């Protein structure tokens, strides 16, 4: 506005000077012209010209005077308008400056002060107030609103801070519960603690929103743990009864096989096989349920019997070919486990190979232990299947949850392998199928001594016997009751083996005497080792020694069938005839004659 006002002001300033002069200049110029006209006029017309010129000049003067007066008035009006304009301009400029100040200085200052906590009245008092009432009101409204919103902001902020702190606390508690309390609770519950114990033992967050889920979690988990433990225990218990029944059935079947002749023998064998398979299945379930094997052997079992015991439990036992020349034996405590493990692996091999192909089992004796290799010629296992099988036989995961469907056998293998430290490895077989290499570590292997019956006693071998009695007798205290009252089946073997290898006459069956003699009390009463029949203990008494022959083990056990009866009769006759030195050189009686002379 001030900018637009300037050109008009300049024009008006120029106009005020020239219009006042111009009329009077015209008057002067016309007066000069009139005088010239009068002077130049002919003398006789001079008076007329002079009158006309004066009249005309007066007219011009009148016109000029009127024009000058009008011009002066117009000028004066224009001047007053200009002043008015100036005033308005000044007012606007002041107003603009105030607005400018308000926007650039006052409002930021108000904002600053209000934000720093000053009240709106206080903030305004220290600042220049704009003269314009609208601006003043605007400023007031602004300050009040600003103060209000600043207060609200502060409130919201403090609320936020509080919420955030609370949040942090919760997060920490939740973190603690998730990372420490719950795992600890799970561990305790798995160990069999009750839900109440666990809840009391661990520190739970006080807040009900966190505590509630934690408690219900623990209770639910405890319930399900209890249920699974109860189910396992009940299964194991029930299975142990079935196992006992199966063992007694097997014993009875064996009894029947001895008692009955050829006409039912085949049927009995089939029944026997079916029962053995049933035993394998029951044992498998029992082991998975945390139970035990159905049998416990109290003496080392030779490898041949181990393999046969294992093969006999599987359905396709005729397809398994055993290649065993090992004389090694498995310690009694592990024998059943090893048999079960091998049976499962053979069952697997037989099931996953064509029904016309054979499964070959090889036994090697290595310094690392006994190596049993089971090879089938079935389909090659895929890498994934082999990895899965490796995983399940490794025994790393013994959780029931890792079992899949009906494939329980390998899980049992894994458990047994982990229990006895047996390593089981799968590899592709050179026969096209899959091979399993089972390494039985040396602590499971008990070197079986050569059976006494292998070498029938000969008269010449008997000759140094009187000399042998003395060291044998003095070996009694040394050997002590060790072999007789063993701590466990495992302890028997080394003692026996030592007694055997220490004796230079290891070939001589009479060298058995230290053990024989120690099997009786000083008063001559028989001492029965756990698991041995009374008949056996009776036989090993010193009194019975003369009766012992190379074939003595044949007399053990109840003689039920015709053969054993005959054998017992035969022996009785032999000893009777020996008493009267009646050994007539009858072929079977030959060796027995010597003990008779010995007496």
């Amino acid at each position, binding site marked *: 506005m001030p900018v637009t006002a300037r050109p008009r002001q300049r024009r008006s300033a120029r106009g005020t000077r020239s219009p006042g002069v111009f009329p009077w200049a015209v008057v002067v110029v016309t007066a000069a012209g009139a005088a010239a006209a009068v002077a130049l006029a002919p003398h006789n017309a001079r008076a007329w010209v002079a009158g006309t010129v004066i009249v005309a000049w007066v007219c011009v003067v009148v016109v000029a005077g009127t024009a000058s007066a009008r011009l002066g008035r117009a000028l004066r009006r224009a001047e007053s308008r200009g002043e008015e304009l100036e005033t308005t301009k000044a007012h606007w400029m002041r107003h603009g400056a105030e607005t400018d100040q308000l926007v650039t200085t006052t409002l930021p200052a108000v904002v600053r002060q209000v934000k720093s906590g000053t009240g709106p009245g206080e903030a305004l008092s220290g600042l220049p107030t704009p003269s314009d009432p609208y601006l003043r009101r605007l400023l007031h409204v602004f300050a009040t609103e600003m103060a209000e919103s600043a207060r609200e902001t502060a409130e919201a902020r403090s609320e936020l801070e509080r919420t955030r702190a609370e949040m942090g606390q919760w997060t920490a508690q939740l973190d603690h519960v998730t990372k420490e309390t719950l795992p600890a609770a799970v561990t305790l519950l798995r160990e069999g603690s009750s839900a109440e114990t666990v809840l009391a033992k661990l520190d739970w967050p006080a807040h009900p929103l966190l505590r509630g889920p934690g408690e219900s979690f623990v209770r639910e988990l405890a319930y399900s743990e209890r249920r699974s433990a109860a189910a396992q225990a009940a299964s194991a218990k029930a299975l142990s009864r079935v196992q006992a029944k199966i063992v007694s059935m097997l014993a009875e079947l064996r009894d029947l096989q001895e008692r009955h002749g050829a006409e039912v023998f085949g049927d009995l064998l089939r029944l026997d096989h079916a029962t053995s398979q049933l035993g394998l299945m029951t044992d498998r379930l029992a082991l998975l349920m945390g139970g035990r094997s159905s049998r416990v052997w109290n003496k080392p079992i030779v490898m041949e019997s181990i393999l046969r015991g294992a093969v006999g439990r599987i359905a396709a*036992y005729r397809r398994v070919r055993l290649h065993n020349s090992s004389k090694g034996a498995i310690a009694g405590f592990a024998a059943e486990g090893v048999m079960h493990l091998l049976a499962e692996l053979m069952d697997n091999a037989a099931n996953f190979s064509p029904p016309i192909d054979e499964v070959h089992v090889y036994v090697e004796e290595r310094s690392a232990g006994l190596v049993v290799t089971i090879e089938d010629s079935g389909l090659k296992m895929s890498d994934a299947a082999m990895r899965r099988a490796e995983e399940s036989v490794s025994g790393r995961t013994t959780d029931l949850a890792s079992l899949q469907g009906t494939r329980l056998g390998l899980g049992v293998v894994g458990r047994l392998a982990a229990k006895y430290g047996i390593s089981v490895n799968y590899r592709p077989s050179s026969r096209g199928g899959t091979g399993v290499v089972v390494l039985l570590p040396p602590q499971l292997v008990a070197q079986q001594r050569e059976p006494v019956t292998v070498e029938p006693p000969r008269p010449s071998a008997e000759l140094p016997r009187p000399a042998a009695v003395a060291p044998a007798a003095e070996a009694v205290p040394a050997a002590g009751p060790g072999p007789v009252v063993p701590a466990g089946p495992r302890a028997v073997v080394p003692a026996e083996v030592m007694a055997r290898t220490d004796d230079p006459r290891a070939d001589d069956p009479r060298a058995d005497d230290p053990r024989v003699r120690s099997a009786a009390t000083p008063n001559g009463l028989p001492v029965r080792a756990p698991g041995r029949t009374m008949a056996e203990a009776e036989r090993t008494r010193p009194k019975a020694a003369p009766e012992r022959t190379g074939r003595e083990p044949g007399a053990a056990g109840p003689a039920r069938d015709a053969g054993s009866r005959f054998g017992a009769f035969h022996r009785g006759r032999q000893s009777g005839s020996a008493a009267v030195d009646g050994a007539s050189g009858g072929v079977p009686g030959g060796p027995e004659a010597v003990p008779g002379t010995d007496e």
Partner: protein
Amino acid sequence: MTRKPVDIGVPDRLYMVTGGRSEADNSLDLVTLIVSECEPTAGMQSEHTRILDLCRHPTALVEVSAELKLPITVVRILLGDLIDMGKVSARHPRAAGSVAALPETALLQEVLHGLRNL
């Protein structure tokens, strides 16, 4: 937990000893004498080894059965295998057909009475 009974037998089942067979060679009599023809070799079934050891001197089938603690049928099957392999030979009792040559029952009874009266 009750203590489990300890097994004292062997884990072998008879069908494993016979390889699943139950039909025996009936030509072998209870008193047939068996003689081994060779020494046992490594890798043989343990029953075969024992029979070969036992029958170095002629031994009756029934005695083999008693010593091995195996039923007669099983021993017959095992011996059948060994005979087939030529590792043992069987001698049938000479007097099997000469039952008529035995003394009269009455005479034997008299002898028995006489013995009792001694």
